[in-house]
């Protein structure tokens, strides 16, 4: 079965510091990995995806993610956090022949001034 784990319920970071939101996955076959962000009272927004190629993927709002096949991880990173980055972040993996995204439980990112 395909699954995604986000081991941290919440990540706290000071503004200006680098941030990492962790994600590990379990799939049979090639993984297709995504990060989405949910701001309060809003729907999810696509941030970035890994399909194939370069292990470092760059996305919206200065975020990037590093695919590590040996560690089955796809951690989300940003060199310098902003207070406006505070939101709920979801890692997701593709499953099956259709666009069936399996989401992780989400990690709340809190960036403090």
């Amino acid at each position, binding site marked *: 079965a395909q699954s995604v784990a986000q081991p941290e319920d919440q990540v706290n970071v000071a503004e200006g510091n680098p941030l990492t939101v962790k994600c590990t996955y379990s799939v049979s076959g090639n993984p297709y990995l995504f990060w989405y962000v949910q701001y309060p*009272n*809003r*729907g999810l927004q696509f941030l970035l995806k890994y399909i194939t190629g370069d292990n470092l993927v760059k996305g919206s709002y200065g975020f990037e993610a590093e695919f590590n096949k040996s560690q089955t991880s796809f951690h989300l990173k940003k060199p310098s956090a902003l207070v406006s980055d505070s939101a*709920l972040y979801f890692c997701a993996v593709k499953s099956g*022949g*259709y*666009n069936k995204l399996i*989401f992780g*439980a989400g990690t709340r990112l809190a960036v403090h001034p």
Partner: protein
Amino acid sequence: DTAVSQTPKYLVTQMGNDKSIKCEQNLGHDTMYWYKQDSKKFLKIMFSYNNKELIINETVPNRFSPKSPDKAHLNLHINSLELGDSAVYFCASSLGTGRAINEKLFFGSGTQLSVL
């Protein structure tokens, strides 16, 4: 000019009632979805339609019935509402058939359903 719009935004109702949530997308996408987000923020797909055809039907009580009158609309009707149905329901859409591995989803803002 909202891309994926859902109505209502909030829905408070009594147990046993029947209610509907509407979703419309103006992106010209072929595939639409319903996701349920529970109180712990866990997201799970419920249904998916491609060009009015049901393509994903997860293990959902048959009290939930999606209806797609055209590819720009996907409504969710819920019969005999139960306390456990309380959640945020998100509509989403994607370009194409839903088979492509790199398709991204565009989400609506959600409908918060509270069953009393």
